[in-house]
């Protein structure tokens, strides 16, 4: 199966692990991720806050490019995923946005035809967690792993339609599929501090610290995330005594599938 793939800018530099292990794992699972040609930055999470049309056009272009190829579009970075899926949602439901965006795209038009999957959804809905567990070569048996969702992966749930944002289970189910023991801790869907880290590092450190403390208190040895910014805040802003290893979920996937190295 071939899917169009939108890695996003961070996956090309800071978050290369997220990208690399995702590609290797997909291959092991019989899925071809075909990177879109000349994709442009999704704009981070800012376009959603500013509610402007211009800054969301790159997402519209990515969605159109996947439609041209007749493929569904796979995203991985939480922020890219959030912006692209919301854009796909709004273009169907928000008449003003749809009209403005399509004015830019003329003579072509886009009306939400492309199906967007987050990589986790790809595992759940296309591969299937049960199928995935059969392909695991090195099960992470006994490893107590906490899933860290952050804010962008599931919210707003009406647009993203991925999982219950208050009590999610997609990452826990994923962890179970690769043999690990998921640890459900209360702060798994609380904010890491996000972009506040640029403005008020201490506040971000506090927010991330709460997440690590809650995970450690509940018995997690390791956290996984899908978001480069979460990983940054959890590992770089927190104090040394609070450190808990934080990895991209794709790294554990690659390890379980035996394609890490």
């Amino acid at each position, binding site marked *: 199966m071939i899917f169009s793939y939108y890695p996003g800018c961070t996956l090309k530099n800071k978050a290369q692990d997220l990208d690399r292990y995702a590609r290797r794992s997909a291959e092991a699972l019989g899925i071809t991720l075909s990177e879109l040609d000349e994709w442009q930055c999704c704009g981070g999470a800012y376009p959603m806050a500013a509610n402007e049309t211009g800054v969301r056009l790159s997402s519209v272009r990515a969605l159109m490019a996947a439609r041209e190829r007749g493929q569904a579009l796979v995203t991985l970075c939480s922020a890219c995923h959030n912006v692209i899926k919301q854009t796909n949602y709004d273009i169907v439901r928000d008449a003003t946005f749809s009209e403005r965006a399509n004015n830019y795209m003329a003579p072509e038009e886009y009306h939400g035809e492309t199906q967007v999957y987050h990589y986790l959804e790809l595992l759940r809905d296309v591969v299937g967690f049960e199928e995935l567990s059969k392909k695991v070569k090195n099960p992470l048996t006994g490893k107590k792993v906490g899933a860290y969702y952050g804010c962008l992966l599931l919210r707003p749930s*009406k647009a993203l339609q991925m999982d219950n944002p*208050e*009590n999610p289970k997609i990452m826990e189910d994923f962890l179970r599929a690769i043999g690990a023991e998921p640890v*459900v801790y*209360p*702060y798994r869907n*609380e904010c890491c501090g996000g972009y506040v880290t640029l403005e008020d590092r201490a506040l971000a450190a506090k927010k991330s610290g709460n997440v690590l403390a*809650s995970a450690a*208190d509940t*018995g997690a040895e390791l956290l996984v995330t899908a978001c480069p910014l979460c990983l940054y805040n959890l590992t770089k802003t927190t104090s040394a005594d609070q450190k808990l290893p934080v990895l991209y979920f794709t790294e554990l996937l690659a390890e379980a599938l035996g394609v890490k190295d």
Partner: protein
Amino acid sequence: MQRIGVFVCWCGSNIAGTVDVEAVAEALSHEPGVVHAANYQYMCSEAGQNLIKDAIREHNLTGIVVCSCSPRMHEATFRKTAAAAGLNPYMVEIANIREQCSWIHKDKATGTEKAIILGRAAIAKVTLNAPLIAGESPVTKRALVIGGGIAGIQTALDIAEAGFEVDIVEKQPTIGGKMTQIDKTFPTLDCAACILTPKMVDCAQNEKIDILSYSEVTDVKGFVGNFHVKIKKKARYVDETKCTGCGLCTEKCPVKAVPNEFNLGMDNRRAVYIPFAQAVPKVATIDPNHCNMLKNGKCGLCAKLCTAGAIDYKQQDEIIEREYGAIVVATGYNPIKLDNYDEFAYSQSPDVVTSLEFERLTNAAGPTNGTLLRPSDGKHPHTIVFVQCVGSRDTSGCGKEYCSKICCMYTAKHAMLTREKYPDTDVYVFYIDVRTPGKNFDEFYRRAVEEYGVHYIKGMVGKVAPQSDGKLMVQASDLISNEQLHIEADMVVLAAAIEPDKSARPLATMLTASMDTNDFFTEAHPKLRPVESPTAGIFLSGACQGPKDIPETVSQASAAAAKVIGLLAKDKLTCNPCVAHSDELMCNGCSSCEKVCPYGAITYLDKEFRMPNRTTAIRRVASVNEAVCQGCGACTVACPSGAMDLKGFSNSQIMAEVDAICKMK
């Protein structure tokens, strides 16, 4: 030729504000057939009605058009006025230029133009009106109350008190409803059971009242005064006439781990059970989903033990058919499911409970015998956080947009009682607004704050996080001091929104009673007819119509009973003469009308007709039972040959209205 009078009402400024009433009267005075046109400030007032009466006499009018409010408001008024002046009441037409015109337009020119068009349509219709004479139908002097909570109980007692027979249909094994689960009642703090159970017993002992417990209404036919209802009496596998309620079976039954609904699943009951000690009827019920004997034929212990010989494993559901003159809906409410509110960790921690569960935890007949203990470890909680508006006033789509009305008061009650009984407990209440209108309500809330030292904090809880030490970390905002709060609580109590019982929607369909988008029954008029459904003969009692506390429910229950008594006291009801009739010469007996008639008013007759050349032929033709027909008009639309027509709303009248509206002037 008809002589028509037109009367344009100002309705103070309600109509005159956006419609030039004088211009409307002037324009309509030139319509064909109109011999008189007038306008007046309040046409429904005595002076206004006299103006109409005088005009009818003076101008010898044969039909009148009143341009005013909705016919639902004053059609009956003006029909009476016409009748008083010697005109047939069905020679009156209303042009609704208020709800359908002045209230929805801002521009006076547009409003005036539309009012003229609506008036013209009414004139075109009244020109074709024919005098109609209303018939009469008898009244079955028995009432049905659906739902046996405090609302249904009060309604039934009041109807029985007036000497009429009344049946209560209750789907649970006992009457009593939600009030049986409540510990104390605000604002007087008297015990709910102490004031409710005597009323339950009164119902059982009143010979005018028949309690059909463990039963559901499955079908309703007929109309006001003459309802025909099918009631399914579910098999309880115990003969009600023999069971003495001794409770021996409920003690010895070997199936012990069935979640007890009465205590909201916080403890267990047996497969054969009596919901609680004061149940009415006090009769055991066997739960077929858990009884070994009913599931796989192995056991039969209760039958062996029962000295009364009441156990009957072969009992079947039974359908009871009865006739009623009036039906009262008292189906009540339920707290919403909290699936959409996982931020409060309700599904993750047993120490996060709903307010109704908290009632059971403080009730002497509850799972902890009235001692407040944490469900997780049975220890005494020292810090309790109450969260209000969980699912109420929620515009996010997760809950309900309306205020559930009762939560502010019961939360104040819970907080106060906790502080009184356990002074070492810290109690916090998070609220959006505290709403305590009601007699002695605000004083009650002030007492909780001022005398009992409950910490009321304006702000919402964002998250409840269970910790490894068993505590609940409550994360909240204090909107007044603009602070983020973190409270380590032992228990969290959620004031879940309330919603109508799930059985209400299918019941409304059976009764053709209207509901709002939240599935609350709609009243005939929100101010002036608050306990009647727009469907004649259907009355509303209690929370099925909107969130209500006990005092308000009881008032409404008695009000509904008064309306029922007023109806049942009549020997005959005036029928609506606007009913269908079939032109036998055009009818081809195809049965289309019979199939669509919701009231079963159409039958077929074989009639002899004269044919050409002195021959005769027998033809099958439709015949309408005018006492049963409700004038809905479905048959007139279904009839392919145009034989079926509705008196007062004939096809030609409707078309004349449409023509008048479309005519360019």
